[in-house]
């Protein structure tokens, strides 16, 4: 509290007057004879206490009256804010932070909450006075100050607020409030205020108040909350969309998991529409309980290979921006796998060492409705086969290969093919090292050099197990979850000791530390070496349940490794990727609204090109094009953060230090008046005089309260 005329406070000495009167009138009694004091004494005991309290109350009322008179003359000012304690001549330095996160995009009774917030910001800026300095900032994820420094230019600030668009991003309070505090901290000679104009969604404030102790914010800086929107409207949202398949093959049905959230107090129905490449394909009605999230699965069929745009949508409501969600999926042709098995000896039955691999990849041996089409050929039979038609080639326990096949395998691998090699009792390490590594120079086939055999598959005295499994690798990632199996339980009785190449990845080790499975990127392709057999002659893994998922995951990882995959992101998040120099020609980013932006690429080592873009503010389906838009390299979806759909408001009392500055249109003071009051405080002179008048009435009534009847 401050006083415009503090010297009037000396008048407070006037409280001595009622005290003196109180004491004086106690001391002038009249002497009177009375027959007997018997009844008087009894009455006095009864009345004395009441009288004492009454007299003290009267004295207190009179003292308060004098204090009020003095205060009214001294012109007191009262304010909640630290600003109000300063002189009215002190200039202000303030920051207006406008929440433009997606949750502000809802409408309440037909009025856009964001437009209301923008009007509030302009009202606050209108109160800027000569000598004041200010800046404006945006609250979204990540938030920022539009002008990093304070400025005197009121018009520029108002113009910037008028041009602020609604963001589709989430809310990160700290990213704008902390820089604002940092900006104001050194300006101790100013009245410092941060105005936060927000819809106060709990999902955005809760993490902030949990992480930061606002009570520790410098006391000289006022934090003012300007809430907009009255209540949280009912909202339904599509908060998740994903394909529940590691790889999507054309013509195969794939379950799409759609997550729906009902942020309202009653159960509601939603009609989910699935569109693929803009064409409505499927519809399903789903009922969701109040304040609940529900997953629903819809089977979809993709016929177009390459990148596909999937959209899940529900009917529009108060918050339209979260009523649809996008997904970019890459659809592959069914994967053709060539297994080169050992040649059958004349007069002997057909070699079946490939059977466990073939059976795992295509159990029913069907070429339709299966992800993998497997062909088994001997090395002799493979002479005339064009390897480019196969996504993966498997070499199974080969003794020797013809130089021509080795050359074709090398070319195939360098051009982007995938090779997986199983060893066995036919393998001669010296021949493998010489012909598959040394003789090929830089185009070698194997990721490791092969040495001696370890263990004895005949006696099976010792069973080795796989340890140090790299569950981060796509081939083993499926085993990361509990209950999904453990490849380490398989036993390997015999295997080859190998030494991985310097650039190779070691995917597992044997139980005594030697490498078990090794993989290396070769050219544009990948080569994997399994140090034991593909059948049950050296190991029991092929008959254990983890064999099939391992093979499936390995092959999927191989065929998808060369594709540029970008997962769905939130608005404003950066997208970066590395592509080959061939792909990087005239790269463009096609945004959901159809506009195309040129992607700036940086050339790195080995002819690779790296690019990053932050132009992801829109929600929807983005394409990365090369060759001036002729080829689609990849695509990705940008979706709003699910927590923005939850519009439940936080109770202001849970946010420390913030002074509320609420306003209802047409009722009470305007925002401008409230800002002014907050800045200068309340002039209490009028209130003091009013209280004085009221007190005089009370004192008069109380003093004349008929405790006894006056003598007529």
């Amino acid at each position, binding site marked *: 509290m401050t006083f415009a005329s503090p010297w009037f406070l000396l008048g407070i000495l006037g409280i001595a007057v009622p005290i003196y009167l109180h004491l004086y009138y106690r001391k002038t009694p*009249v002497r009177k004879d*009375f*027959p007997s004091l018997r009844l*008087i*004494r*009894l*009455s006095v005991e009864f*009345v004395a206490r009441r009288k004492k309290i009454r007299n003290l109350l009267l004295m207190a009322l009179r003292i308060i009256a004098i204090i009020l008179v003095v205060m009214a003359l001294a012109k007191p000012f009262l304010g909640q804010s630290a600003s109000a304690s300063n002189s009215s001549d002190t200039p202000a330095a303030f920051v207006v932070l406008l929440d433009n996160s997606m949750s502000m995009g809802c409408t309440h009774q037909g009025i856009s909450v964001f437009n209301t917030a923008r009007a509030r910001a302009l009202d606050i800026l209108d109160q800027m006075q000569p000598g004041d300095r200010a800046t404006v900032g945006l609250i979204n994820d990540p938030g920022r100050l539009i002008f990093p420094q304070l400025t005197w230019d009121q018009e520029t600030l108002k113009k910037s607020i008028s041009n602020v668009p609604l963001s589709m991003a989430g809310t990160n309070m700290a990213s704008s409030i902390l820089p604002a505090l940092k900006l104001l901290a050194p300006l101790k000679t100013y009245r410092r205020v941060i105005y936060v104009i927000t819809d106060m969604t709990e999902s955005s404030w809760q993490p902030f108040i949990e992480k930061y102790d606002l009570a520790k914010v410098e006391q000289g800086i006022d934090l003012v909350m300007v809430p907009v929107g009255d209540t949280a409207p009912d909202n339904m949202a599509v908060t998740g969309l994903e394909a529940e398949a590691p790889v999507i093959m054309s013509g195969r049905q794939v379950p799409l998991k759609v997550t729906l959230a009902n942020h309202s107090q009653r159960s509601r129905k939603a009609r989910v529409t699935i569109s693929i490449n803009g064409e409505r394909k499927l519809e399903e009605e789903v009922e969701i309980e109040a304040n609940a999230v529900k997953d629903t699965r819809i089977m979809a069929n993709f016929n177009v290979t390459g990148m596909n745009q999937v959209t899940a949508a529900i009917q529009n409501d108060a918050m339209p921006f979260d009523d649809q969600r996008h997904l970019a999926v890459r659809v592959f042709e069914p994967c053709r796998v060539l297994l080169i098995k050992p040649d059958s000896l004349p007069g002997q039955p057909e070699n079946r060492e490939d059977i466990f691999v073939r059976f795992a990849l295509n159990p029913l041996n069907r070429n339709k409705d299966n992800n993998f089409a497997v062909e088994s050929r001997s090395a002799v039979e493979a002479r005339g086969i064009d390897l480019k038609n196969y996504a993966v080639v498997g070499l199974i326990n080969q003794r020797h290969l013809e130089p021509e096949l080795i050359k074709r395998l090398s070319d195939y691998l360098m051009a982007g093919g995938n090779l997986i090699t199983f060893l066995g009792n036919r393998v001669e390490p010296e021949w493998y090292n010489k012909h598959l590594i040394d003789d090929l120079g830089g185009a070698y086939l194997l990721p490791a050099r092969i040495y001696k055999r370890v263990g004895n598959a005949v006696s099976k005295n010792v069973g080795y197990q796989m340890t140090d499994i790299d569950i981060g690798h796509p081939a083993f990632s499926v085993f990361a979850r509990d209950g999904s199996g453990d490849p380490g339980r398989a036993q390997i009785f015999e295997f080859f000791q190998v030494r991985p190449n310097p650039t190779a990845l070691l995917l597992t080790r044997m139980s005594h530390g030697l490498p078990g499975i090794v993989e290396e990127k070769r050219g544009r392709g990948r080569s994997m070496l399994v140090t034991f057999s593909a059948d049950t002659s050296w190991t029991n893994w092929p008959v254990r349940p983890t064999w099939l998922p391992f093979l499936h995951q390995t092959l999927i990882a191989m065929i998808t490794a060369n594709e540029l995959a970008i997962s769905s992101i939130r608005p404003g998040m950066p997208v970066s990727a590395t592509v080959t120099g061939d792909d990087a020609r005239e790269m463009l980013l096609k945004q959901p609204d159809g506009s195309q932006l040129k992607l700036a690429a940086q050339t790195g080592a080995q002819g690779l090109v790296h690019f990053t873009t932050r132009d992801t503010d829109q929600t929807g389906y983005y394409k990365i094009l090369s060759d001036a838009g002729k080829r689609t390299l990849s695509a990705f979806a940008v979706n709003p953060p699910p927590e923005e759909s939850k519009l439940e408001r936080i109770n202001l009392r849970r946010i420390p230090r913030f002074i509320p500055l609420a306003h209802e249109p047409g009722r009470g003071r305007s925002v401008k008046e409230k800002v002014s009051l907050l800045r200068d405080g309340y002039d209490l002179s009028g209130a003091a005089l009013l209280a004085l008048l009221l007190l005089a009435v009370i004192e008069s009534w109380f003093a004349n309260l008929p*405790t006894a009847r006056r003598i007529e």
Partner: protein
Amino acid sequence: MEKTRRLSRFLDPKLLAALSSMEIRARTVVEGMVEGLHKSPFKGFNVEFSEYRQYVPGDPLKDIDWKVYGRTDKFYIKEHEEETNLSGYLVMDTSGSMSYKGQGSMSKIDYASTLAASLAYLMLKQQDSVGLVTFANGLRRMIRPRTGMAHLKAVCNELEATKASEVTNIGASLDLVGQSMKKRGIFILFSDLMDNAEVIIQKLRQLRTRRHEIVLFHVLDRDEISFPFDDTTIFHDLEDESEIVTDAFQLRTEYLRRVKHLMNTFKSALRKSGIDYLIADTSMPLEANLRSFFSRRQAVSAR
């Protein structure tokens, strides 16, 4: 001049003239002859020995039985059955509080004495016997009931000679009076009752059980009834000389409530026991009080 003309300052001729047509009627049957207006349950006229009792100050020395004194060294009075019609006992509270004189012309004791003298005159005039007892902290003086107008002078002299002083102890005093009243009669008490109400009521009831006719004049000054004080006041107690400082204005409501409560307590408790309770407000004319007394007596005797 005034004094010579009057028998006593307590006997106002105008008052007596106004009351001349009035008579004291006993509410119930009393012992006595038809000489008066009172019915008697006894036949014949006897002067015979009744009983011995201990001497109390005020008893005539001639009534002392010297033979008993010779045997026991104690004074005993030999009592005989009264041959008069009605024995009236005027019992006067002479404590300090009775000396209070408010806005009116008489103090409480003067007012009570006038009432008593007037009643004595009327009773003697109709051949009843009248006695007088004064008390404060204990019995002060007792004049045995006698008939004849000559006895009026003794009663009036005693009333004039009595000065109000000391504290009140009504209970103990009534005990002593009761012991000295052997013959049933009318017992007229004049007091401001500045003592424990429960004790007073209890003692009066005891007297009533001895078949005495009891009339109580509650003598109060107008100041005591209306408490017309309005300032911070030091009240001085006329009995024990104590003082109390208080705001009379604030005390008034509570005081009046207590006075009213006290009077209602006496009224209801005594009337239930067949005791006449009359407020003698000293600001009221004596005649009015006496008229109300007589009208009440007449109403009762007509039953």
